[in-house]
């Protein structure tokens, strides 16, 4: 296991460097946007003089490089600063939203991951049957439609026509858990439809790939039933690619849901990021993007570790 912990440490180190590079890129990307925070906060109605006064207060007159290193100095010590627009601490502004995003992502993942893997196994088992074709066509159609379109379709049929679920997912603090699940059902379903195809087809492909191997032939020859061949013999060897694609999709559930949040008015971190970019609120943009970057890095790391753990050959190298 020494090798594994060395790998984790190495990857975490590389991850930190990646995050640093990302933060530089984000900072200068925000700098490149036309207009600055003073103009966007005060709106079209502000005079030159007022804008200048606000720039002065926010310290925008200093060179960009100086401002970046000031931010970095704080960030290294765990202080992500305050929102330039509202004056609120970035950590406070983000935490609730991030919890909401994590909740929606987990809700979708808890449903999508088992469904995709089970569907994957079954489509592999009954490949080239009607069931396989239907499952493939259905999941491929949902992944091919833009997610906001899926959202609108679901709203039309499940909210407007039948009033089964609320069309908007505004949350309030006093909601019971059951209410919460009902309120967020439509965005969850949209996300499930978007990520299922990818995971299902990877599971199916990985298993089918293995079915041609001699050891599967052996299992069949000794009379093992087909489902057992797949679950007991093929699946354990297919975990590595499946875990990989699951990790990628989990990352997507956290970082790629802006459109779904907008369509369902769900107060998640994506919406916060969009607002912050519109206002050029650099500390908030930076913090959101770094959370996204860290999510990707950690999930990828988890996927690699998972792949190693499920593969005895990698676990016990010669």
């Amino acid at each position, binding site marked *: 296991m020494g090798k594994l912990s060395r790998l984790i440490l190495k990857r975490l180190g590389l991850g930190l460097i990646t995050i640093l590079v990302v933060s530089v890129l984000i900072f200068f990307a925000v700098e490149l946007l036309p*207009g600055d925070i003073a103009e966007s906060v005060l*709106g079209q109605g502000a005079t030159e*003089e007022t804008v200048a*006064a606000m720039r002065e207060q926010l310290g925008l007159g200093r060179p960009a490089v100086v401002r970046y290193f000031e931010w970095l100095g704080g960030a290294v010590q765990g202080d992500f600063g305050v929102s330039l627009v509202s004056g609120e601490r970035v950590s406070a502004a983000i935490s609730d939203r991030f919890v909401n995003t994590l909740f929606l992502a987990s809700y979708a993942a808890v449903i999508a991951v088992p469904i995709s893997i089970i569907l994957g196994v079954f489509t592999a088992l009954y490949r080239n049957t009607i069931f396989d074709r239907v499952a493939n066509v259905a999941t491929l159609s949902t992944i091919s439609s833009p997610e906001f379109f899926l959202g609108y379709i679901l709203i039309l049929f499940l909210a407007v026509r039948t009033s089964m679920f*609320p069309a*908007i997912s505004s949350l*309030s603090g006093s909601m019971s858990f059951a209410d919460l699940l009902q309120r967020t059902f439509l965005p969850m379903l949209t996300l499930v439809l978007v990520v299922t195809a990818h995971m299902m087809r990877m599971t199916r492909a990985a298993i089918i790939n293995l079915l041609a191997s001699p050891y599967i032939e052996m299992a069949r020859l000794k009379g093992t039933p087909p489902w057992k061949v797949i679950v007991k013999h093929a699946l354990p060897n297919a975990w590595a690619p499946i875990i990989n694609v699951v990790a990628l999709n989990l990352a997507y559930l956290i970082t790629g849901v802006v459109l779904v949040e907008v369509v369902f*008015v769900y107060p998640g971190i994506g919406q916060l990021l969009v607002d*912050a970019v519109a206002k050029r609120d650099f500390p908030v943009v930076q913090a959101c993007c770094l959370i996204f970057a860290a999510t990707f890095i950690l999930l990828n790391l988890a996927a690699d570790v998972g792949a190693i753990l499920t593969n005895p050959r990698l676990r016990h190298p010669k």
Partner: protein
Amino acid sequence: MPKKNQLLLDRLSDAARTGRISRREFMSYSIAAGLTASTATGLWTTQAAAQPSRGGHFRWGLHDGNTADTHDPGTYVTRQMIYLAHTHRSYLTMINGDGSLGPDLADSWEASADASEWTFKLTENATFHSGKKCTADDVIASLNHHRGESSTSAAKALLTDVTDIKKDGDYNVVITLARGVADLPWLMTDYHFAICPANDDGTIDWQSGDGTGPYKIENGEFGVQWNLSRHDGWHREGAYFDTVDLLVLNDPNARQTALVTGDVDSVSLIELKTMALLQRDPNIQIFNIPSAGAITMPMHCDTAPFDNPDVRNALKLAMNRDEIIEKITFEASTKANDFHHSPAQPYWPEGIEQREYDPDQAKSLLKKAGAEGLTVNLSTADSIFTGAVDMCVLYAEQAKAAGININVVREPNDGYYSEVWLKKPFCMVSWGARPTPDVIYTLAYKEGAAWNESRWVNERFNELLLQAKSELDEVLRAEMYREMAELMRDDGGTLIPFFNNFVYAARSTIGVPDQLAASWECDGARAASRWWSTS
């Protein structure tokens, strides 16, 4: 004070009787006046007869809110901030449903003979939600928030003439100005001038969200939603609902769906493209109210070829406004006449001849100016309003009949107002509503004004502007604004196609007064305190 909806109606029937306007214009003006919004003639009369009743819960979906908004009145800019301000805070004065000016925190006000000193007498009944009485100190601190060197308020420019604000007893505020400003009581309705509790050092406590408005904040989060409950000490009429929720619904589809499914009771903006479909729903009432907001197309009067008034007028004549109002705004706008004074503002001059589409006259004007076959660039961007680029393309087509070649230049949305506006010689601009003609003329048409977007300089216009500013005689003042309107129409550098209407909607379970204020969407942003539940 003029009552604009009534005035407009009287004017309209008058004009129709004497045959001065066509049926089409009559229709577009009266739809604009909100009085015959097509679903609703019947609905409207029953609404008008209905009596407000107390109780119920009001869920109000807003179209423009950002997470980074704050309670600071100096940075009010989104609808979320403005509606919330009109719900949990109050102002010195307010615009009534009929367009007249009425009391809010101030019971009454009077001016010195030259309008350079105004005394506002405050009501003694107003309390903050914290229980503290609202006195002259709070008002003074709140107004001073927008004054002085270090102020970052967007409303600073409105108070540049103010030299001193002091109190005379606990309930009198005296405002002294460098010169007469007859509009001062109107200016006090500006959404920035919300009254907040004063700190001991003369600054205001805007951070706590305390106010003297009809509802107090229970909890909420900018960019998401606000929950409010009735403030029992509210000093004016209204505040019928027990509780009010403001929900930020930036996505047009989410907003309309929420209204249709009953997840909200009212939304502040509906998409014009789907307005006709929404009108078929018997559970929904749509309001189409003319506003003082305008789309303008300024031409730099100091830059060739726009330095010649004949060229400017040719460009004005080359636009078919009726077609634009029909195809681009789906009749949800009020035809303008190249002067920036809306029928939704006081002193609107009636009877000035409407400029119509006349390519032949445009051609002859160009010939006179020696500019036949004129080619100009017109800068625009999608973010100005929905259909802005389409409108420019349509205008370019219309102008071809006058031999004018307009290149529509589509600029990036981001930074349009810092990179294009005031810089490109012919562009398109969206102006928010201003309460009086003086405010908008001073801001955008006065010689030397920072935002004189057409760089227009007209001596007589500037002279009248200054005179009208301090004229307390209503009749004389109205005459001055008429002459200014004519000057701007015939000499000005700005093509004004239309004033945009506010188009918003409510469920039929919501009762509304028979006249709706036109200062903002949703009854002057005061839906929470002026509307009631009928279910």
